[in-house]
């Protein structure tokens, strides 16, 4: 059994990193949150633009994402910065404290000056960083790992090299008792029947088809027809013939294992094995959703070298072609372009990815971590009011 050393949290989960983060509950506080994080070495700002004037379903989604991020196993401590009377910072902090997380909330109010808030925040964060250094690591095995599967900046080779290699990895970790999460609902349109067929039950199959239908309906409601718009002219020049082919190339990241469960954006899987999360195709929002759902590491295939990272989870970049690896070695962790050069097959790269995932779980930094790429954004379904 493959093992790694991680940080055991009070709620039983295990982290592969030990971050101290500062989060804003609403967009107005993003600047202040960054400023505060800058005052304390090792404190990481996790900021976003949302949280005010949203429709109820978006408010729910935003709070679920904030809570999932703050209570993530890779996070040692979280400071929330909130504002005004109805701000959720204190409520969320209390809920997470009850589950054993080290969380604190500071709410900026009329009677508290910004400098007082900054001072209180700086002290709490400095303590939290000190405390995080004292946390001991313990051994865990691969059954406790959840790995998110993502693609962004795809090219003609994504569906030939990187995505099938990620699929080979996904099958291997699922075989070993671990969990993988496939996401990006719109990218499954055209190949939804394949995942529906692979579902463990009629119920899971129906849930999957429903999130695909819902996504398509929302796009149609604003005049976008995903089916007719794909493959794009660029895709066709690259060799992709039909929507089915494009979507098959995307869902290849999910390998061939049975689909155990369909979960909402930033929801937590209850099952182990192969899972699907309802997310947009936009990589930053999708990665943030899988992380908030508890994925400790995200695999990310790219043909164009998308630099997307995450403030709380290591993102492992898998380049689709040899040229990309040559031109952007500092952004790519695995070169699946070796398949095109004839030195490796898909399974070889899948196993190379698996070995690297275990090293990353053991603390090895990924390219996006070394580059300090810490993108974060939350998916919204409706407009801002």
């Amino acid at each position, binding site marked *: 059994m493959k093992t790694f050393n991680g940080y055991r949290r009070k709620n039983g989960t295990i982290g592969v990193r030990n971050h101290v983060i500062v989060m804003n509950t609403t967009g107005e506080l993003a600047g202040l949150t960054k400023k505060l994080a800058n005052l304390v070495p090792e404190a990481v700002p996790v900021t976003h633009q949302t949280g005010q004037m949203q429709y109820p379903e978006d408010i729910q989604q935003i709070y679920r994402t904030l809570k999932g991020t703050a209570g993530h196993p890779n996070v040692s401590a979280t400071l929330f910065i909130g504002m005004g009377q109805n701000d959720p910072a204190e409520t969320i902090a209390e809920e997470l404290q009850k589950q054993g997380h080290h969380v604190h909330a500071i709410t900026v109010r009329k009677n508290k000056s910004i400098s007082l808030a900054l001072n209180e925040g700086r002290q709490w964060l400095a303590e939290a960083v000190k405390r995080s250094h004292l946390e001991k690591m313990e051994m865990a095995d691969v059954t406790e790992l959840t790995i998110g599967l993502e693609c962004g900046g795809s090219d*003609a*080779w994504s569906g*030939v090299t990187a995505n*099938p290699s990620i699929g080979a990895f996904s099958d291997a970790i699922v075989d070993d008792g671990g969990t993988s999460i496939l996401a990006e609902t719109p990218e499954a349109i*055209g*190949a*939804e*029947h*394949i995942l*529906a*067929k692979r579902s463990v039950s009629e119920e899971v199959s129906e849930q999957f*088809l429903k999130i695909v239908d819902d996504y398509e309906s929302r796009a149609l409601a604003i005049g976008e027809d995903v089916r007719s718009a794909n493959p794009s002219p660029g895709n*066709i020049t*690259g*060799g992709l*013939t*039909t*929507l*089915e*082919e494009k979507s*098959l*190339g995307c869902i*290849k990241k999910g390998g061939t294992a049975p689909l155990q469960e369909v979960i909402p954006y930033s929801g937590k899987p209850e099952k182990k094995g192969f899972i699907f999360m309802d997310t947009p195709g936009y990589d930053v929002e999708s990665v943030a959703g899988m992380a908030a759902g508890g994925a400790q590491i995200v695999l990310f295939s790219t043909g164009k070298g998308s630099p997307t990272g995450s403030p709380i989870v290591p993102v492992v970049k898998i380049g689709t072609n040899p040229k990309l690896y040559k031109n952007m070695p500092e952004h790519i962790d695995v070169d699946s372009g070796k*398949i*095109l*050069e*004839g*030195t490796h*097959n898909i399974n070889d790269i899948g196993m190379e990815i698996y070995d690297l995932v275990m090293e990353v779980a053991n603390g090895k930094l990924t390219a996006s971590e070394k580059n300090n790429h810490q993108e974060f954004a939350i998916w919204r379904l409706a407009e801002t009011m």
Partner: protein
Amino acid sequence: MSEQSFNSLKMHAEDNVVIALRNLRAGEALSVQGDSADVQVQQNISYGHKVATDFIPEGQSVVKYGEWLGIATEDIAIGHHVHTHNVRGLNEQERYAARSGEERSKI
């Protein structure tokens, strides 16, 4: 690094197309990774594009990754380019059949 010994890739054993790994010239022999197909390329084919390794009659499915990516709109001979000029996507009825797991041959 070993020398590349093939010029195309088959994604699944049941596929009737392979992917060109470099620009292929008409008349060239196809060498497929992990496969002993004896196919001569009949047309110039760009890298990333598909070549038929079986005869695909009009109305039959084109198979990649072991799944149907579309339906041939004309007979496609072995060694020919497989793309938008001779393949269309699935229609609603075909997609429904695929969803419910019916066999390819029934379409």
